[in-house]
């Protein structure tokens, strides 16, 4: 697929999402949440390039969401909350990253998990500050000074999420084609060679890790502003597992994967919850199994295969 085709597809996808949100108003919220999560899944995709899976990436989503919640008490302005939360998340990603990039594979995955669970417990324990499992409500917000209410709030946040997903999708795409991104993929196959090329593999991974934290931070901020409620559950290990699930569901081979995966995941969840409330986990498990067995390229890989088959036929 050429770069122009990808760009057109991305724009088409954005228009489709907005059209869907317009046709079915209650989906606006669902789609915004899906896009917010896809921002974090972009990070999972980056780390997967290096052959590493983080089972604690929701840490950054939650961290940013809480940062947004606390900052909103002082300045309830979306255009401030977003960068503040993203930068806070990136900074923590830098500090944590310096430590975790020394490890690989199962140790990398589990260390991330452990740290996210530490954060979860802190959120739960410090009731006086965080209100524990009750979580924190965000006050009414403004966007560029205009109060965010009702319909307007829904649209502003959805469009913000669409713009962020397009922007970071493009960034990740460019990053992966750059020497830094290609070296990242080199960590997966031959880390020794990187060192003998004079390339510090850990710093290559650290750069990706910080970018992943930054993107999850943006996702967390959007999530907090959309739901207006943040709880420790955001950092719970199942939330991290969900991000990895979405990455595999959508397909880790392309930047389209995270967005397709997240949208499919949230839509399925909403409808499954309505139709077969108790079978949700079962559906989740079965879908994951099917994808791993029959469509290792995820939904994106399936779609691409279908398209190219049609072209040949």
């Amino acid at each position, binding site marked *: 697929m050429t770069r122009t085709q990808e760009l057109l597809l991305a724009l088409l996808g954005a228009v489709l999402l907005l059209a869907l949100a317009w046709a079915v108003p209650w989906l606006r919220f669902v789609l915004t949440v899906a896009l917010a999560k896809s921002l974090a899944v972009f990070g999972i995709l980056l780390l997967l390039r290096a052959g590493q899976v983080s089972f604690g990436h929701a840490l950054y989503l939650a961290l940013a969401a809480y940062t947004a919640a606390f900052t909103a008490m002082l300045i309830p302005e979306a255009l401030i909350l977003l960068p503040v939360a993203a930068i806070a998340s990136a900074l923590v990603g830098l500090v944590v990253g310096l430590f975790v990039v020394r490890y690989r594979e199962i140790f990398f995955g589990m260390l991330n998990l452990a740290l996210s669970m530490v954060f979860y417990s802190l959120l739960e324990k410090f009731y006086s500050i965080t209100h524990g499992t009750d979580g924190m409500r965000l006050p009414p917000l403004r966007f560029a000074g205009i109060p965010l209410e009702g319909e307007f709030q829904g649209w502003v946040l959805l469009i913000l999420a669409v713009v962020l997903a397009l922007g970071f999708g493009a960034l990740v795409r*460019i*990053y992966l*084609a*750059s*020497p*830094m*991104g*290609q*070296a990242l*993929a*080199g960590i*997966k*196959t*031959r880390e*020794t*060679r990187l*060192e*003998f*090329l*004079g*390339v*510090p593999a850990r710093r*290559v991974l650290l*750069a990706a890790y910080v970018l992943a934290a930054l993107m999850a931070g943006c996702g967390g901020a959007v999530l907090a502003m959309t739901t207006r409620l943040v709880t420790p559950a955001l950092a719970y290990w199942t939330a991290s597992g969900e991000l990895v699930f979405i990455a595999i569901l959508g397909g880790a081979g392309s930047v389209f994967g995270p967005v397709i995966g997240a949208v499919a995941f949230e839509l399925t969840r909403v409808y499954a919850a309505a139709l077969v409330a108790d079978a949700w986990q079962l559906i989740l498990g079965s879908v994951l199994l099917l994808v791993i067995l029959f469509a290792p390229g995820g939904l994106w890989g399936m779609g691409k295969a279908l398209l190219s088959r049609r072209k040949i036929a």
Partner: protein
Amino acid sequence: MSALLSARGLKLAFGGLKAADGIDLDVMDGEFLAIIGPNGAGKTTFINMTTGYLKPQAGSIEFDGKPILGMSPRKIVALGIGRSFQLPQLFTEHTVLENAALAVAARSGIWSPFAPLMRPSIRQEAEALLDRFGLSPVADRRADALNEGARKLADIAMAVALRPRLLLMDEPTSGVAAADKMAVVETLVRVLRESRVTAVFVEHDMEVVARFADRVAVWGQGRIMALGDPQTVLNDPQVRRDVIGELPQEALHAPT
């Protein structure tokens, strides 16, 4: 001629096994030095110590007059010591061209997240590099789809891309089909001479050694058993018995 690399009293034991047992060696600027010796003699261990991959328990190594012992492989590479591997270390999910491009990019630092790796300047240099090694026909193949000989060459090409002053090659011709071997070595030697690289290479083929080495060092049980010009060393009765006794006679009379 001055010594580009000098090793003194290198010792390294794995448990009771002495892989290096007092190695003293000077590699002269501009020479091609062959290392021969039986399996397990400690040839690879010497390369590993020189490139910072293993740390000797005693001794010193100087490169261009500077002590390099204890430095990381990365620092040593930056000083101008390149290496290729007994088992080629390629990025197996990348194409040969991408492997070469990464090596070319690595020379000037890879920290550009926005410009593509395959930008014209890097691509052209990588293509020229592969061309010099006769690897152009396989440039677009994935590295794990190559035969052993091409993998070896690609591995060396990546080291050469960094423009080292000293190149350590661990069995560059093993795995290369016998019929192609001399042609491959000739290509290799031409590239290295063009780039004015000082080379140390571990080699099991005495014909290659006789033809291309300026000097030969014979390794045995972590020590250097003999060192000198190929004619003398390869005809030394003890060396012939211990290291090359089983090899065909005519190898030694190959043209030099």
